[in-house]
């Protein structure tokens, strides 16, 4: 086993898990809505990016357009459909699943079964007999930046405090003058934009087709469940755990066992730690403080 191979694969897998999950985690963690159309939101981001790039926009601009399109779509869907579904967990699951189906088939009808794809920029890092795509490795710092940015947004800004107040106690927040409706809308738009960002970032390295959303869904849900109730910390921890396990098992035994190991980890974590990794962190912290 080559150490650099393992390191790059970890970077690649960690970024994939974090980026696949982060939009879902924000919407679920902050609003209690399980967005089963999350994968399709990612697909919209990828389509926005690829179509803009094909129309001649430089890749970074195309990516910004992809994020914007998904955020605007999130805004429209929140105002028309999602806002009726708060505190209706099962209804929201069925409705967002249906939205996903409509988006997939809608894109197929609008743009056909496939659109011309964008190639991966930035070449490769070569080391000895091996090489790795530079772009895929750079997704790690991007994922960390996204997590850092969200941490600052939700803990260090007035918006973040209002948003968290809305989640913890909407009635009191309203009594103190917080427009909770607007907070919900803003949070959903942020979650949508993050999904769009994931789509934009993966557009040059995955195949952009109407059904591509499903390839993110397993990692996203496993990461959120393994992560537990605390959104940011949970996503980071589960990205780290699942990324490591996937990289090690894939490296030793091949992709098939990498997938099996990841799902087994999820089963074990759910069975042993019902509140996920952040639940464990909480318990440990309480115990330490109690002593």
């Amino acid at each position, binding site marked *: 086993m*080559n150490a650099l*191979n393992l390191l*790059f*694969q970890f970077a*690649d*897998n960690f970024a*994939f898990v974090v980026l696949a999950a982060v939009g879902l985690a924000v919407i679920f963690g902050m609003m209690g809505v399980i967005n089963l159309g999350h994968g399709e939101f990612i697909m919209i981001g990828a389509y926005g990016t690829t179509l803009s790039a094909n129309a001649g926009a430089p890749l970074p601009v195309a990516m910004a357009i992809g994020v914007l399109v998904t955020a605007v779509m999130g805004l429209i869907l929140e105002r028309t459909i999602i806002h009726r579904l708060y505190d209706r967990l099962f209804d929201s699951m069925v409705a967002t699943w249906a939205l996903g189906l409509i988006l997939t*088939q809608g894109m*197929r009808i609008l743009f*056909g*079964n*496939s*659109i*011309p*794809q*964008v*190639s*991966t920029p*930035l*070449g*490769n890092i*070569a080391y000895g*007999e*091996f*090489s*790795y*795509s*530079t*772009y*895929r490795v750079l997704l790690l710092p991007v994922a960390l930046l996204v997590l850092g940015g969200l941490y600052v947004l939700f803990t260090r800004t007035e918006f973040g405090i209002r948003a968290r107040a809305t989640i913890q106690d909407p009635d009191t927040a309203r009594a103190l003058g917080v427009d909770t409706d607007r907070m919900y809308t803003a949070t959903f738009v942020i979650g949508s934009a993050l999904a769009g960002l994931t789509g934009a970032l993966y557009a*040059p*390295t*995955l*195949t952009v*087709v109407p*059904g*591509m959303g499903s*390839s993110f869904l*397993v990692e996203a849900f496993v990461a959120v469940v393994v992560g537990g109730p605390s959104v940011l910390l949970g996503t980071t921890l589960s990205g780290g755990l699942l990324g490591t396990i996937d*990289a090690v098992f*894939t*490296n030793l035994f*091949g*992709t*098939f066992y*990498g*997938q099996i190991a990841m799902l087994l980890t999820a089963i074990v974590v759910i069975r042993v730690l019902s509140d996920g990794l952040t639940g464990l962190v909480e318990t440990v912290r309480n115990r330490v403080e109690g002593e």
Partner: protein
Amino acid sequence: MSGKRSGLSRRSFLATGGAIGGAALAGCLTGGGSGEETVKLGIIEDRSGNFALNGTPKYNASMLAIEELNEEGGILGNEIETFAPDPQSDNQRYQQLTRQAINEENVDALWAGYSSATRETIRPIIDQNEQLYFYTTQYEGGVCDSYTFCMGATARQQLGSVLPYMVENFGTDIYTIAADYNFGQLSADWVRVLADENDANVIGEEFIPLSVTDFGSTINNIQDADPDFVMALLVGANHTSFWNQRTSAGLDVPMGTSTVMAQGYQHKRLDPPAMANVYGGFNYMEEIPTDRNQEFVSRYYEKFPDAAYINEEAVNNYFSIKMYARAAEAVGSTNQADIIEELEKGMDVSAPEGDISLQGPVHHMTHNMRVFRCDEDHTITVEDEQQISEQFLSETVGCNLRENEETTQYVPADYYEEADATQE
């Protein structure tokens, strides 16, 4: 009000369907003369869901073949009718639609399904009802079935054209990456058999689940093994991500394939040079430069100006519908048992790929196989061309459907030591 109207129209629709079905049945029973029968073909091909990209050209080419036949007077003097619902890439829906096609629509012949998993899902229903069925996808091979005609090239034919070419030009060390399901596993077995026959070695193998989109470790593993060439038997939209990732990682070892380009036209969809130095063994790509093919291509795009590509399977649907029409004319009825008997005599077929022939006793085609090369600009050139017959059933297994009724799928591991991975 509107509900009432639609209820009425549905009832009258059912009545018409019943009448047509009854007429077809009567035709079958009496084996009637020309001009009195209805001919109805079932075309069940995916136009939505996972396989829409591969299924849509199959549907299009079928409609083109039927339109051309109808312009020439149909089959036995009757206009051809179709039962052509969208199975949505869903195997349960395939089962339901196959039953409907056989029991309610009374189709005279059926074309259905893209993947081997779909074929194996509906084949029991087809056999139970003794329904004449054409499966047109290039596939792993080995289906010896009295009611099924496999029109696509088998793995032994596809790999048998490209693998010897790769060994001759690049060397003897082979690394196989294959989709992890029945088709990919059996195709990898065939790579081992053919490697042995061509004095080459498979030095590494990886089976990749269809859900995988990340190929970083696979690429590293290939670099570690350092083969002379890779056989890439990848399937589906997720696996298409491999090509961009391998090019971006700088993995430039030549690659042979039996699955990519000719089915999912990756060379048209991906930005060059993603598919540079990929060699495929196929019976068809729309780039075949012959006059006959170019005329076919222009007819196709005249009818479907917005179509994306004509894949291997589409052409197999096209020529096999024409072949069915000739068999029905020769028999003078649409009696399915008679047509199967007629087809089992064998038939020369003029197809867009060239002049090919049906091997009657095994229900497979001798195909005009070519080795296609994709260069860094994604231009397709023909590197090699030869007629390759179906050999596994006809020579190794000894399947003869003229003599024996069968519905078996044979696998290479039962006949070749090299194909049995458990012995290594």
